């Protein structure tokens, strides 16, 4: 909700089993960002934001 650039989806995978295969979901919650970064489990806010932002190319450029 904090940025116009963000779309946040909550997906009940039991209703879409094809996604379990597509994203190799073995535990929940599983978080996938831009189909590039993925992690499982709840994280504290700071770490969560860091993991999410690591999906941006800018982070890549910073090495």
């Amino acid at each position, binding site marked *: 909700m*904090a940025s116009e*650039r*963000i*779309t946040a*989806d909550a997906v*009940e995978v039991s*209703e879409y089993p094809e996604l379990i295969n597509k994203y190799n979901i073995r535990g929940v919650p*599983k978080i996938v960002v831009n189909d590039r970064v993925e992690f499982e489990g709840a994280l504290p806010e700071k770490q969560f*934001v860091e993991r999410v932002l690591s999906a*941006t190319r800018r982070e890549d450029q910073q090495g």
Partner: protein
Amino acid sequence: MAVLSDRDKEKVRKTFEERLKEPVSIQLFTQHESPLVLPGHECATCRETRELLEEVAGLSDKISLEVKDFLTDRQEAESMGIERIPAILLDGQVKGRVRFFGAPSGYEFSVLLQDILDASSGELGLSEDTLRKLSELQEDLHIQVFTTPT
């Protein structure tokens, strides 16, 4: 749970009364319910999701619900990147897009309620550091959180 108990309805009604500020709109993309079911096009949880959202929306004047048909409103669904139903979209004091796919049952229901409250107030409870980092975003982010009903 498809339909809320009277006790739950009262709790939610009270929470909305005390904490809802600005209006929140909910859009539901579902399928038209008819006696004829096209094989391969059944949406097992669409009816219960619609019923649940109708109940929730009925608990506050500040919540509006718009129900769209995934097939007849196909163009609109596609333009919003909706590929699966039921799809719930929240709008209010939010900058980005918040969407739920699948019936919000169990724990997800309380997540939905909390999101409605957040969308109403715009107060996100995020740290200044987080807000600053998010405001500096240079590209779009699509965050998907996969859960199972509890």
